């Protein structure tokens, strides 16, 4: 019996079966990868590389060092503060709202209403949100005026100013709180009612239930959600631009000015600035993913 041979068959036998399959099916996702490379990966990578270069294109760590100069460092610090405060405030209040609506013994319509409003409110950000808060808490805003008319109390006399760190943080909370509600809702839903009942059945009080069961289960997703909120606020620029303009020098405002008009007089420093931003948001998201993996392990 002669064995049939043919160069094509030999070739096919030589390579693993999935190679030939892949070479044609890859074609289907080429447009996506081309798009991703052109409009996501390469632009960002180029920025990152540019941060490590000087104006002649040579490798240098100068720009990274310059990030720690007083003015830029203080800019990062303000960004971190605004993001952290709005993240912590947003996550605590958002959690309270979500918990109360999802398992607080309230009527059934509260839950879908809260989730719907959160979906809408979390998208009401940027320039219109700044306008809304100016119209409400600005010097002639509705609340400001009402408080003067009803209580004779002018909040601006206490040194409060909407166009400040505190004002920006308060405005950021408007989309941070609903975002928290949306992110943490599944985790709260995952708290089975039977765990509460079982713990009571075994003699635990409400406080002991929280201490031994609910909080240990909830803190990883809560912390993770706070990190998401932090990254979200850190990368925000439109709201700040419309509200505080360049008076509050957060990193994104500085970067905006740099892109517009090279205020730093050093292109590569601008790239380093962007690199620093990616580092902060990337780290937060990585930590979020790690925490989510940790908590999901138990709840399989």
């Amino acid at each position, binding site marked *: 019996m002669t064995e049939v041979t043919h160069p094509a068959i030999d070739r096919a036998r030589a390579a693993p079966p999935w190679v030939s399959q892949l070479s044609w099916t890859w074609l289907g996702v080429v447009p996506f990868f081309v798009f991703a490379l052109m409009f996501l990966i390469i632009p960002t990578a180029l920025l990152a590389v540019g941060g490590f270069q000087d104006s002649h294109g040579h490798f240098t760590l100068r720009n990274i060092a310059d990030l720690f100069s007083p003015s830029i460092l203080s800019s990062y610090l303000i960004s971190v503060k605004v993001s952290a405060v709005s993240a912590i405030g947003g996550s605590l209040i958002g959690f309270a709202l979500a918990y109360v609506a999802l398992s607080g013994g309230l009527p059934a319509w509260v839950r879908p209403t809260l989730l719907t409003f959160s979906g809408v409110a979390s998208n009401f950000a940027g320039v219109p949100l700044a306008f809304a808060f100016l119209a409400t808490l600005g010097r002639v805003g509705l609340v400001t005026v009402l408080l003067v008319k009803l209580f004779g109390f002018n909040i601006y006399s206490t040194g409060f100013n909407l166009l400040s760190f505190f004002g920006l943080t308060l405005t950021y909370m408007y989309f941070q709180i609903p975002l928290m509600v949306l992110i943490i809702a599944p985790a709260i839903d995952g708290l*089975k009612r*039977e*765990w509460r*009942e*079982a*713990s*009571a*059945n*075994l*003699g*635990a*009080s409400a406080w*002991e239930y929280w201490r*031994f*069961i609910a909080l*240990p*289960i909830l803190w990883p997703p809560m912390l993770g959600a706070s990190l998401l909120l932090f990254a979200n606020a850190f990368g925000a620029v439109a709201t700040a631009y419309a509200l505080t303009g360049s008076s509050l020098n957060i990193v994104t405002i500085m970067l905006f000015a740099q892109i517009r008009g090279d205020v730093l007089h050093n292109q590569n420093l601008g790239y380093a600035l962007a690199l620093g931003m990616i580092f902060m948001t990337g780290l937060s998201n990585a930590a979020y993913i790690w925490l989510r993996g940790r908590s999901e*392990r*138990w*709840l*399989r």
Partner: protein
Amino acid sequence: MEAGTRFLEIDDLQKRFAQTTAVEHVQLDVTRGEFVSLLGPSGCGKTTTLRMIAGFELPSSGAIRLDGVDITRRPPNKRNVGMVFQSYALFPNMTVAQNVGFGLRVAKRPDAEIKQRVEEMLALIKLPTLGNRYPYQMSGGQQQRVALARALAIRPQVLLLDEPLSALDAKIRVALRNEIRSIQRTLGITTIYVTHDQEEALSLSDRIVVMNEGRVEQIGTPFEIYNFPRTPFVASFVGTLNILRGRVVDSAGGRIMVDDQEIVAAHGLEQARAGDPCSVALRPEVVSLGETGGNGNRMRGTVEDVNFLGSIVRIRVRFKNNAISLDTFNNPRLSPPRQGQSLTVNFPREAVLVLEPPSAG
């Protein structure tokens, strides 16, 4: 039941939700160490009753007394009853040992005592090496045993089980239910067991409470419930039944006409009138093949279906509009009847359970 042996008293318990009454006039006295099942279809109120004993629902009226003490309004964390949930409800962030020891930890018992009690409980459920596992690393059957150990660790006065086996595979169910019963007997703990599976209730219980639509239909031992059902619901819910429909011929003599054949019911027709539509029930095991001497009932029909199930041969015999199933043991020397073959079946008069017209009492 004399006053001294009443351990758990459920006294005319009622629970109303907005539009519906979930539980009505439930009256039950349980003796110490007794295993009582609450049996019924979904929505019959058995779980609500159990949850009232546990303290998760507040009765609208009535009382619950444990060892003489009224616990009706006590919060659930102060009742000293142990509950096993259908979904196991093990705390996912704690190991098996931590789960089992939770109740003792909350009671602030010393660590050494907790450690020893946990070991004892794990040995009882035959999982002594799984103390450091997390719930997600264990099978359903293992999780349920841990849930049982957790409930028993606090030495409760009553053990409550809410359909603990429904979420498990059939094979594990049988093994685990026997294990539960043997643990219960060893510890002598008073137990209330909720289930919709009548086979489970029959095999495990000292007494069964059959419930339907919030009310108690019958309370009795498995033998009583099965052989002497007091209402049509109990008769049809517990065990399998053959039902024959016909008309009353003569109420004094208990004669009924079914598909042009006459049979006699020993009792149950006292209140009926001649001509009333009538339905009776027969347990499959009371029906035999062939003629019989004496004054037993006889009916002639044709074999509609024969199912060879191994040790049992299930034969379905059709009369005109009615049909009955009967089981006979496999006999290698006797081949089963063929489809279409005509044969006679017989059953005693006392075995005829009259379902309709309903008799008083």
